């Protein structure tokens, strides 16, 4: 058994809407399956009982091992306390290979779980045993380290519960909440509205006290000091006992409290000075009472906890050391943030505190005697938290809110020392000792005692108004042909509305009309870039098959999913997809992820696309070139919407209601209604605009102003005329596209038809032959070429297959064979005669477009030279005539 490949499906994908680890296993006949299986069962009986449940009966098969690996990935994660369950096994073409997909939550953990699964099997095969409990612990640790911490995790969870998309921007706790221009950010318990000035004030305890006194919030008396001597003087001035703390600092580091002696104060000074960059130290009157933490979020008190320092209670017989060890057996106490209590530490600091109490580790405290091990109550050093939210006196809450406000923090953890929290501070004598930016939330989420509080929800509610899910409209466009034109068309419609459009397509990423990335950007990474861009009001995402297979969708839900067509398909035979039905299942992924309020815009004329309608959680708008299409008629009969061509006009039909958009002859992209596939693209785009709620007038204006030319949709049916000849530049490279082009060209005036073409090498033989067959049956002259990049095929093979197709074709075209795209185009243009129509299939779109338009520009200005001479000169200039 060998792991052939693996990948992470990070978004909704062909198998599920979960995040999945996908892998392919390959078995070797020589594998000793039974021995391996028996050893696994013997060594890890409990794990294997779960893993082998439901496994295929035949143990040696690829499907069996795919099951074992996939199930191991799930079960190992479960052992590491990760809540996953989904697993699926699928056969592949080769009988000795099979695919599994297994759910995961954290990428690093998933990868490690898979590696561990393989290691377990390999070890068993080699007769070795792994220390499974240790491996599981390591896996759990890895998960703890890589997943979001408890505070940020709670915020992320609260956001998701409100339907707000959450994306992690770093390995740490920086989150993007929402999409595009609607996005907000949080970093731990700070929002993007948490003021840096507020944070700086909070970090300076002395300045914080000044600020608090502005609004009359009680603060302990005290002052900053610059030496140990001065600290003692200040201590005597404010009255003993005192607290000594660094002027700036956090998490209680370097803080000593309850100091009564000169030595203690001066010693505490030295400790505190270490924690302040400028060695500034504050001496304050020690306040009697408990430590309370009040959490203020957006002008509301949302939680309060009493924090008790770590301590043990004597039983009259055990030493402090034993008491600590016993308490640390408490399962609630852990080593990390995953438990509500941390382990008690009997370290140097604890020993100092013990010494102050006249004790050592070995002392045996009396029954009921409380021994504290730390002066501060931080959870990380073993303190405990008790929720007291419900008993906070309203005036105490009000003071805390005022304190947060005057410091200038939207989220603040306010430390109160007071005998109680259920009476006003004036009565209790309590005072606020500190205000913390980015406060830890763990003590409120999972207090050691009392009720957990929904502080993540409170933070999200403070950031987003009720009903605001921080989303921007997302249009996903998929299909075999017409995606790019439709995508650009939809983007055009939205731009007409004054919206800032983010668009991804096969020739780049565009935001507000500016290209910010080049190349094929029809995958999930590009989608995420657009959705993370702060200036995007609406996203129009070309969503191609490749990216969905590779990684899943780049978004969770969309508002509109457009499927242009599946037709005869493309890329068949790749990734184990042989049938157009399988391809249709992939193109249906965005349809499955249309939100309930959203719309799928589906081609009623393509049965595979029309059949996707039931998958859509929202509503469906069908589009069709035929008003009488049975699919459309049925849909309308049940009150559905459709956009159709009726008597030469585009009509928006809503049940029985019909509204005319415009006559096809008024819509430039259809070339007077002649180009059938452009009509389909138009219907799809207008359908998307309708789905997003654009009014009829806006749709009409948008449709009337969108033409397919080099500037708007380069390489997509760009018609260039030169004197009496016509050149069409198009990217089409599959049978469906060629048939559509053939239909379009048939409606255009011309004498002879010529084409420049090559088939992509990574298509099936039959597809390449079929493409040539179509070309041969339609064109009079075919310029074929092979490019440097033959995508995995031997030199000459693509041309051989094409020639095979030409033989089968009905016509008998003249075949001209050349090397290189530009040379073929150059030769074809050089040979143009009046009345000729040349279809140039452009692959290196920008290069080819520049070449062709350059030639024509020159031809216009230098009328004496023939196109042939210009083409030859241009190719020579590019250094292409030599070879």
């Amino acid at each position, binding site marked *: 058994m060998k792991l052939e490949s693996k990948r992470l499906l990070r978004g909704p994908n062909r198998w599920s809407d979960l995040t999945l680890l996908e892998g392919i296993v390959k078995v070797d006949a020589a594998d000793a399956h039974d021995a391996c299986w028996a050893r696994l069962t013997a060594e890890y009986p409990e794990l294997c009982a779960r893993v082998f449940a439901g496994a295929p009966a035949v143990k040696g098969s690829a499907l069996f091992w795919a099951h074992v690996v996939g199930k191991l990935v799930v079960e190992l994660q479960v052992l590491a306390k990760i809540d996953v369950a989904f697993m699926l096994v699928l056969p592949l073409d080769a009988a000795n290979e099979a695919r599994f997909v297994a759910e995961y939550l954290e990428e690093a953990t998933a990868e490690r779980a898979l590696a561990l699964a393989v290691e377990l099997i390999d070890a068993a095969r080699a007769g070795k045993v792994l220390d499974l409990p240790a491996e599981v612990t390591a896996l759990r640790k890895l998960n703890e380290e890589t997943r979001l911490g408890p505070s940020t995790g709670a915020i992320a969870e609260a956001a998701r519960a409100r339907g707000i998309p959450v994306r992690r921007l770093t390995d740490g706790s920086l989150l993007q909440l929402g999409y595009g221009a609607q996005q907000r950010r949080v970093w731990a318990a700070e929002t993007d509205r948490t*003021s*840096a000035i507020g944070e700086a004030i909070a970090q300076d305890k002395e300045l914080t006290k000044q600020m608090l006194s502005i609004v*009359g919030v009680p603060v302990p008396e005290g002052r900053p000091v610059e030496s140990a001597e001065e600290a003692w003087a200040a201590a005597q001035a404010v009255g003993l006992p005192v607290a000594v703390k660094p002027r700036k600092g956090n998490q209680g580091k370097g803080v000593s409290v309850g100091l009564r002696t000169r030595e203690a104060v001066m010693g505490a000074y030295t400790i505190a000075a270490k924690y302040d960059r400028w060695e500034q130290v504050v001496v304050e009157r020690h306040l009697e009472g408990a430590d309370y933490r009040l959490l203020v979020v957006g002008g509301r008190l949302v939680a309060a906890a009493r924090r008790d320092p770590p301590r043990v209670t004597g039983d009259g017989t055990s030493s402090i050391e034993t008491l600590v060890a016993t308490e640390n057996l408490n399962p609630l106490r852990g080593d990390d943030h995953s438990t509500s209590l941390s382990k008690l530490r009997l370290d140097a600091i604890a020993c100092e505190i013990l010494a102050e109490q006249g004790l050592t580790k070995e002392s045996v405290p009396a029954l009921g005697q409380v021994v504290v091990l730390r002066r501060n109550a931080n959870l990380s050093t073993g303190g405990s938290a008790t929720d007291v939210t419900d008993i906070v006196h309203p*005036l105490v809450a009000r003071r805390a809110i005022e304190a947060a406000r005057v410091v200038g923090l939207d989220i603040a953890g306010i430390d109160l020392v007071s005998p109680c929290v259920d009476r006003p501070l004036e009565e209790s004598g309590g005072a606020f000792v500190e205000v913390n930016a980015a406060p830890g939330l763990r003590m409120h989420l999972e207090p050691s005692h009392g009720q957990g509080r929904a502080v993540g929800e409170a933070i999200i509610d403070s950031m987003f108004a009720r009903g605001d899910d921080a989303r921007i409209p997302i249009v996903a466009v998929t299909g075999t042909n017409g995606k790019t034109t439709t995508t650009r068309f939809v983007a055009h419609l939205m731009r007409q509305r004054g919206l800032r459009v983010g668009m991804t397509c096969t020739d780049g990423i565009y935001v507000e009309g500016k290209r910010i990335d080049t190349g094929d950007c029809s995958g999930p990474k590009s989608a995420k870039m657009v959705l993370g861009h702060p200036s995007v009001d609406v996203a129009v995402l070309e969503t191609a098959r490749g990216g969905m297979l590779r990684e899943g969708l780049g978004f969770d839900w969309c508002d509109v999913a457009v499927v242009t067509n599946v037709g005869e398909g493309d890329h068949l035979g790749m990734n184990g997809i042989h049938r157009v039905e399988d391809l249709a299942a992939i193109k249906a992924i965005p349809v499955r992820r249309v939100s309930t309020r959203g719309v799928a815009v589906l081609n009623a004329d393509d049965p595979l696309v029309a059949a996707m309608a039931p998958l859509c959680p929202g509503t469906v708008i069908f589009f069709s070139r035929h008003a009488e299409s049975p699919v459309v008629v049925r849909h309308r009969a049940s009150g559905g919407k459709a956009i159709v061509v009726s008597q030469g006009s585009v009509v928006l039909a809503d049940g029985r209601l019909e509204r005319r958009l415009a006559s096809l002859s008024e819509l430039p992209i259809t070339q007077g209604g002649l180009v059938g596939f452009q009509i389909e693209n138009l219907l799809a785009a207008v359908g998307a605009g309708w789905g997003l709620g654009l009014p009829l007038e806006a749709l009409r204006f948008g449709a009337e102003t969108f033409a397919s030319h080099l500037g708007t949709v380069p390489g997509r049916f760009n018609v260039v005329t030169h004197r009496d000849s016509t050149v069409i530049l198009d990217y089409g490279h599959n049978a469906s596209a060629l048939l559509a082009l053939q239909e379009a060209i048939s409606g255009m005036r011309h004498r002879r038809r010529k084409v420049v073409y090559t088939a992509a090498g990574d298509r099936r033989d039959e597809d390449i032959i079929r493409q040539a067959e179509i070309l041969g049956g339609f064109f009079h002259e075919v310029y074929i070429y092979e490019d440097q990049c033959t995508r995995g095929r031997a030199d000459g093979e693509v041309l051989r297959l094409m020639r095979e197709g030409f033989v089968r074709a009905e016509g008998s075209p003249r075949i001209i064979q050349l090397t290189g795209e530009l040379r073929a185009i150059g030769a074809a243009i050089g040979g143009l005669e009046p009345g000729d129509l040349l279809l140039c299939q452009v692959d290196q779109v920008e290069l080819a477009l520049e070449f062709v338009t350059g030639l024509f520009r020159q031809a216009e200005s230098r009328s004496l030279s023939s196109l042939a001479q210009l083409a030859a000169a241009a190719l020579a200039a590019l250094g292409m005539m030599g070879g």
Partner: protein
Amino acid sequence: MQVRNVVALKGPNIWANFPVLEALVDLGRYEDLPTDKLPGFTDRLMEWLPSLIEHRCSEGVRGGFLQRLRGGTWLGHVLEHVTLELESLAHLPVGFGRARGAGERGVYKVVVRCDEPVFGEACLTAGRELVMAAAEGKSFDLASELTRLRAIAEKVCLGPGTQAIVDAARARGIPSVRLTERSNLVQLGYGKAQRRIWTAETDGTAAVAESIAQDKELTRKLLRSVGVPVPEGRVVASAEDAWAAALELGLPVVVKPQDGNWGRGVSIRLEERAAVEKGFQIAANEGSGVVVERFVPGSQYRVLVVGDEAVAATGGEADHIVGDGQRTIAELVERANQDPSRGRGPSHVLTTLVLDDISLELLRRQGLTPKSVPASGRTVVIHYNGDLTVDVTDQLSPEVAASCALAARTVGLDIAGMDIIAEDISRSLESQGGAVIEVNASPSLLMHLRPLKGEPRPVGEAIVDHMFGADQTGRVPVVAVTGSRRLDTVASLVGRLVSAAGYETGVVDAAGVRAGDHWLERGDVSRRAGSLRLLLNPLANAFVFAVTEKSVLEEGLAFDGCQVAIVTDVVEPPPNPELDGPSHTWRALRTPVDIVLPSGFAVLNADDPATVSMTKFVKGKVMYFARSLAAPPLADHLAAGGTAVVLEQERVVLLKGRVREELVDAAALASADARGLTVTLEDWLPVLAAGIALGMTVQAVQSVFSNEFDGRPARDPEREATGAATVG
């Protein structure tokens, strides 16, 4: 000449509507020796301080003060001008001063404008010494004295960037309050309308965005994802990895710390393995991770983005020295550092040149050491990232400006300094392979305020405009109540009226300081300190301050403008020639009237001629109150369409020109609940007038009056509060 006593009046006062220093100066024997009787005095003075020629003085023309010196003037007056000149030379230009006799022979009050008393006093002391030296024909080391004063200014005064923001706010009528003595933390606006700045950070600058900007790798990732050009690069783990990265990226490269600022630890244009590895060590010493980036050719620029706009751009050149064929590089560096515009810290336009590890490496690559003597005219680069000193705002291309604004928005900063490398700032970055190499939070503003070449840019104005909408002034209603008698009673009642009208009101009167229903201090505390404390309170949206004569004379006001100033009356004390000169009572009580905002009202007692005489100093409108229509100024005032609140036949009426509306019955006033105060009928007149002056309608005043002062037992809202309060 002795300075007997110095008082800092930190707000509007009897001399001016801004802070001044008031010194009591005893000329001693110089009372009989004005300047024309002191041989050589004027010449010595003018030699030390030639810029005194600019002082116009009472002559109102350039050289006016010089004329006075030559014609003979007293040293108190000279001290005033010299102190102002020292303030100007050591820090910022100031122009206001007064010298007036203090009643006693030979004793003067010398008054100079001064924002920071520590600095002002230092200038005054130095000024006294300078004047005495000139008078006694002694020498005076002005240069070292100015160096000392500059050091004090740098320590105690606002930094230049912050000062520019504060000045811009003031120019828009937005008040400012410095929140701490030494830092640049400043509040703009009062109470609930306040915003804060701290150097070039606003209270809208997000801590999260600052953290992002600190992390160069994260910043680059975010910028790249929105299409802002950034240099290719990656984090490296070791010196070896740094070289590997350099080869992947293509030479030359830049090696720099992952976190950090101000170009510390950054080595530029490295081509050899040894240099890259050395660069790694230098960057690693900064304590964070290390990044290797493709070197972007071109010059460095800094573009300042405020809000969503690039408002200024500065270019510069590498730190370099030019050889003279005689001095070593080390000597040339030392010589360059003697330029007073060089120094460390934010108030220097140029930074001190240092020969650190990076420079030594750079020299090595030029085949030089600090001991090399470069040929005359040879330029030797010490540091690639030098000072930015040339304003290029006008050349900035819209595309680069848009890239910078997008970068700031992407990082999330409202104010950001973008470090850019480009061959030509007037073309898009994409067109020339330029890049944004760093995003700085809290950028220095100095390079835009004081470029060595080109025009200074109003970046303080841009920041203030970003923080305050065109219609925002940072102000909330302030009612100042002053007078010789009854002011505390009136203030207390106005406070209740304003609170009852729905304001979260801060009140200072003889009883203490309270915000809403919460006492901050009890007892007759410092009026200025109490008022200031309230103005800082971000919850309060109206203020009523009882201002005593004493507090104006001894402290100055806490606020620089008020919506309503009420003067109850003016009672001059009996003359006492043994004290410090003529009475300032009237002038002190007029001080709040002087700073009534143009949209505001002075509410003046028409029955008291001394109060009425303040009328002509009001910049807003005047409203009189009077016990009867017979009060002298009323007839003309009403005829001109003015407003007055008058007791008329058992009723208080509001008169507006010829329109008459009844406000409250005298009977209701007599039985009104005054919470233990002894209130006369007349006390109510300015209270009701204040309500009208604050824009309340007659109906609103009546209804608030009857609800708040209806004689029922007082409510104590503190006791009634339930549930977690929400403060909006």
